[in-house]
């Protein structure tokens, strides 16, 4: 009941749990193999040390323990117990090759073995169910965590969206109501403000859209092998359209690098980090963007030469919750959301994202694994 419910709830799980038919087939195989081994071992033992029935029974009990642990349900264990009891009686007790239930103490052997097997089966079934329950609970916790993050993000964003929207509405209504009283310079300022605010909104929407590519509960993404230089190239091209004056020095390895990723998301991360460096560094010195090839991973470093990150900012770089405090309306608007989205994206790729200060500015670095974790996700 429990099992079928959990399979229905999440189709992903069905990949891990084999279909019932296969599981039963495997159980039967295990039973047959164990019983055969126990019987052979007993024969061998009997051949070497005759007339020691107690150990023969132990061989079978060992086999039964293994069966109880690795088969599904009780039925296999009980069937094998019956088989064992009869086999011991038939093969290894006098008179050999005859069923004789009147043997001294035999009913006791029979009862004890059945009892042991039953208890074992119950215990192992419990163990399986419990471990499934734990897995399920962990999954639910992760979902709740994700849900909380979403809620935080939504709250922070709706908060942040209001500011530019107020600017757009205010400026455009001012223009509509008193166009004739405004000088052409004033008109131009109003229009420029509207233009800038809408671009900021657009940027935010792009970020939100990218988050929707990460599939809900399990944080899973679709990765394909992508050439690093193409992803970086497109990100830079888009950034150049938005900030034609920004200077970025790019250094990437000469070798051709293909790594598994969701290219659109990694592009978004690259754009966000570079944009942060352009807008928030408070400097017009060229920004360094460096891609390094390591044996296990590829790292992407964005280094600016500006005022660096404040102590307070460093404390909770990637958290949207910092938006609840008074900092939310300062000039760094949008930075927290952009970074927390980057964090989500990189985490979904099983990579790392970190930010720190270097001697003359701030530095952000994200890494993507070359193979392994991401690939095995599929």
């Amino acid at each position, binding site marked *: 009941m429990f099992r079928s419910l959990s399979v229905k709830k999440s189709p992903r799980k069905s990949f891990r749990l084999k279909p019932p038919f296969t599981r039963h087939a495997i159980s039967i195989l295990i039973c047959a193999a164990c019983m055969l081994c126990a019987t052979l071992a007993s024969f061998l033992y009997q051949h070497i040390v005759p007339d020691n029935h107690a150990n023969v029974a132990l061989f079978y009990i060992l086999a039964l323990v293994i069966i109880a642990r690795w088969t599904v349900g009780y039925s296999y264990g009980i069937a094998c117990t019956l088989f064992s009891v009869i086999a011991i009686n038939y093969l290894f007790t006098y008179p050999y090759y005859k069923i004789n239930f009147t043997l001294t103490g035999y009913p006791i052997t029979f009862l004890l073995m059945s009892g042991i097997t039953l208890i074992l089966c119950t215990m192992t079934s419990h163990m399986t169910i419990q471990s499934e329950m734990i897995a399920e609970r962990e999954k639910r916790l992760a979902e709740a965590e994700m849900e909380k993050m979403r809620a935080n993000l939504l709250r922070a964003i709706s908060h942040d969206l209001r500011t530019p929207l107020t600017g757009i509405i205010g400026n455009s209504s001012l223009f509509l109501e008193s166009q004739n009283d405004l000088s052409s310079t004033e008109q131009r300022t109003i229009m420029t403000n509207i233009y800038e605010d809408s671009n900021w909104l657009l940027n935010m929407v792009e970020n939100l859209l990218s988050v929707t590519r990460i599939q809900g509960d399990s944080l899973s993404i679709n990765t394909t092998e992508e*050439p690093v*230089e193409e992803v970086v*190239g*497109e990100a830079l091209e888009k950034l150049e359209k938005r900030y034609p004056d920004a200077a970025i020095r*790019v250094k990437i390895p000469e070798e051709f690098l293909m790594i598994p990723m969701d290219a659109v998301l990694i592009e978004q991360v690259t754009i966000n980090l570079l944009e942060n460096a352009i807008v928030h560094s408070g400097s017009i010195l060229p920004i360094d963007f460096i891609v390094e090839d390591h044996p296990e991973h590829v790292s992407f470093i964005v280094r600016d030469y500006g005022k660096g990150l404040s102590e307070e900012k460093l404390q909770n770089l990637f958290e949207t919750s910092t938006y609840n405090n008074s900092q939310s309306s300062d000039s760094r608007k949008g930075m927290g959301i952009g970074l927390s989205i980057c964090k989500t994206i990189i985490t979904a790729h099983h990579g790392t994202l970190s930010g720190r200060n270097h001697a003359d500015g701030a530095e952000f670095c994200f890494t993507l694994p070359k193979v392994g974790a991401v690939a095995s996700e599929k």
Partner: protein
Amino acid sequence: MNKIKVLLIEDDRSISNFITATMDREGYKIMHALNGREGLSLSTSFCPNVILLDLGLPDMDGLDVLQKLRSWSDVPVIIISARTKEQEKVSALDLGADDYITKPFGTGELMARIRTSLRHSHAQTPGHVYKTLDLEIDFEKRLIRLRGEEVHLTQIEYQLLTLLAENSGRVLTYSYIMNAIWGPYMDNNNQILRVNMANIRRKLEQNPAQPQYVFTEIGVGYRMRENENGAIPAERF
């Protein structure tokens, strides 16, 4: 002189307003349809030189409009779309769209796309020279020069580059390129294409991560920089 005729199929008033105003100022004759049916009937009666088609229309899917249109007309179609999924761009291009432009876009970008697709509909005879920045491709002599010096490409690389150059300014999808260079029986793994493009980039670009000639559209395909030789002003037509 005859003006170039543009048909805009778009249901959003605000967007169609600014496109119509821009096109008017640029000296195009523009006609506006609010839905797919109207757009299809106007495309026969108005005989546009280029069609701007929004994918999200109230009465039918933009891709269906494109498919119907393509059954009888080769007029250049530029897709205007708010959809951001690469797969949708790819299917629009594979259905015969000449280009796509994603909302939001600036008027400058829109005009450039229109000029590109108009140029391709008046395709010049092959055998001309492609030239942009420091790159020159002489299709007749099969010669590629970068800053005056000859560049040596392999057979496949040359085919790839000329295919992109002949369609410069347009996005060619992975599957289109694979089909054109390696034929229809190649499996759909485009790794071989990616590797060849990387080699071309190393031979042409100063920094492969900041390309000047061949641009990547992630998940869609490649686009080569406009041919400067073919930059004909709009009034020519």
